[in-house]
């Protein structure tokens, strides 16, 4: 089913039930679990299915289904690119796969360390796939996995967060790897520190579509957790990569590369330049956090929740550049 149609349907259903969509985000957890529904997918290109994440932070009502998830179906096998933000999220992605194909799920790619992208991995354990990640990901998961899990369990409940799964197939920065789904090759690239230090992207050779993970945020304020200058470099590389269409980590299921890259380059350039100027002027960090990059505010959802933190992150790094 077409994604937009499905969304319209659920909206109408909700309205018919006398409920306003904007105020019913919290479903009773037990009921939702027992009725795990296949995730709403959109087929952005033959065999490439994407579930658009919500523009929200994790809540008990949304099962941390806030990141874009996807899978690619080849002749012999399926690859998952980001299994989801919770067990529930992963299960519903798995149901969506099984509604379309019975081929084995051979690979589960983890695009980076963040919880909204990795905690659905446990839902795929029974499929015995190869879990794939950036060469830095195992260390990052060791350092942060338990911390993220504790935090997410406080929101979703103890049984809802999947265990931390460490990838066994690792991709080194200087050595792209290739996966074969049977006549369909995927190229994995491990990036330099940018959004995080563990960013991995996936290029489907057949369609030329790139799963960029959180290297690309479209519409939602990006969160800086790696290296501001490094991220700008990676954005320039993506801009010049020749890739025309991409699945961002957050935002619409498929966007032209230029449309995704340009706003991010603009935002991070403003953030970098204004932060450098503030440091040079001696503007205190607490003042910088509430006054910098505000020209970007109209362009991004959830700006007030993330921009100040990005300023602090940029400030404390650029102080030592």
């Amino acid at each position: 089913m077409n994604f937009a149609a499905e969304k319209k349907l659920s909206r109408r259903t909700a309205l018919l039930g006398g409920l306003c969509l904007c105020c019913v985000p919290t479903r009773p957890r037990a009921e939702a679990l027992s009725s795990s529904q296949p995730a709403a997918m959109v087929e952005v290109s033959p065999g490439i299915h994407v579930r658009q994440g919500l523009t929200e932070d994790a809540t008990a009502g949304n099962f941390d289904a806030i990141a874009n998830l996807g899978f690619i179906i080849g002749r012999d096998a399926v690859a998952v690119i980001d299994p989801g933000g919770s067990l529930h999220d992963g299960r519903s992605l798995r149901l969506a796969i099984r509604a379309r194909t019975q081929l084995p799920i051979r690979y589960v790619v983890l695009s980076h360390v963040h919880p909204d992208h990795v905690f659905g991995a446990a839902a795929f354990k029974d499929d015995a796939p190869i879990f794939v990640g950036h060469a830095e990901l195992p260390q990052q998961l060791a350092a942060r996995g338990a911390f993220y899990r504790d935090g997410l369990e406080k929101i979703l409940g103890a049984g809802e967060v999947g265990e931390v799964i460490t990838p066994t197939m690792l991709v080194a920065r200087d050595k792209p790897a290739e996966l074969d789904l049977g006549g369909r090759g995927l190229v994995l690239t491990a990036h330099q520190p940018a959004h995080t230090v563990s960013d991995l992207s996936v290029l489907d050779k057949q369609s030329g579509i790139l799963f960029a993970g959180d290297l690309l945020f479209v519409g939602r304020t990006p969160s800086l957790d790696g290296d501001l200058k490094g991220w700008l470099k990676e954005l320039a590389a993506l801009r010049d990569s020749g890739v025309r269409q991409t699945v961002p980590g957050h935002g619409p299921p498929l966007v032209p590369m230029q449309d995704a890259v340009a706003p991010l380059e603009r935002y991070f350039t403003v953030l970098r330049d204004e932060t450098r100027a503030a440091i040079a002027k001696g503007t205190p960090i607490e003042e910088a956090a509430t006054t910098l990059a505000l020209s970007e505010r109209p362009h991004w959802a959830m700006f007030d929740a993330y921009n100040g933190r990005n300023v602090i992150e940029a400030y404390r790094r650029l102080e030592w550049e």
Partner: protein
Amino acid sequence: MKRLLMVALLMVSGINYAVADDEMAEREARWRSVATDIFGERAIEDGSTLLKLKVPEQAMNAALVPISVELIGDRPITTVSVVIDNNPMPLAGRFKLGPAFVRDDIKMRVRVNEYTLIHAVAETDDGKLYAVSHYIKAAGGCSAPDARASADVLARMGKMQLRRERSSDLTQVPTRLLISHPNYSGMQQNASGDYTPARYLERVSVSVGGAKVFDMEGGISLSEDPSIAFSYVPKGDGEVEVKVQDSSAAQFLQHFDALK
């Protein structure tokens, strides 16, 4: 009554969880016990005529919370302490003030591990203690792992910067001291999943032309790459000397020319 409040834990990851707000009685009991540990049985009076404590209501990053203590009025103050009651090591910094210290703001960046009262405590020259406090909603600041493998922080450990403002009359110099140091809390997991042992700034001494600005006793509650802002009285051509010792007995010494 307990209320649920949202706290920005790790905004990078879409995780904001609700923590139970503790009760007034609990906060007071905690402060009494922490204060006894640090100051013994000495009486502590209201300090609102001596100190003003500025703390954000809600932290954007619990591992880097900028706070400031303003010294007001004119009663001679010998020591200023910053205490984060609910942190595993509550004393964040104790400043013994010297003759070259200008009675103005002290600013620092701290970690906040759970919702807590933060106290600023002044000791006056007659040996009396005065405190003010502020509540803050932040959590996870001591256990939050560093984004980078800390390799770059370790590589520049001990490097310092002195960022100084040129005030119009040069009778006092607003200054920010930056010390590169991971200031490991002992609660951060590392790349092998183990806890990195605590390693923090124990002592920071600043003097100018031989006159003391302050001696600070630190702790794990200081943020990574600690930052301390203060103002000093310049002593002619006398250079600024900063001496740092961490809990692994590493010493760092740096001199900065007088501001011309």
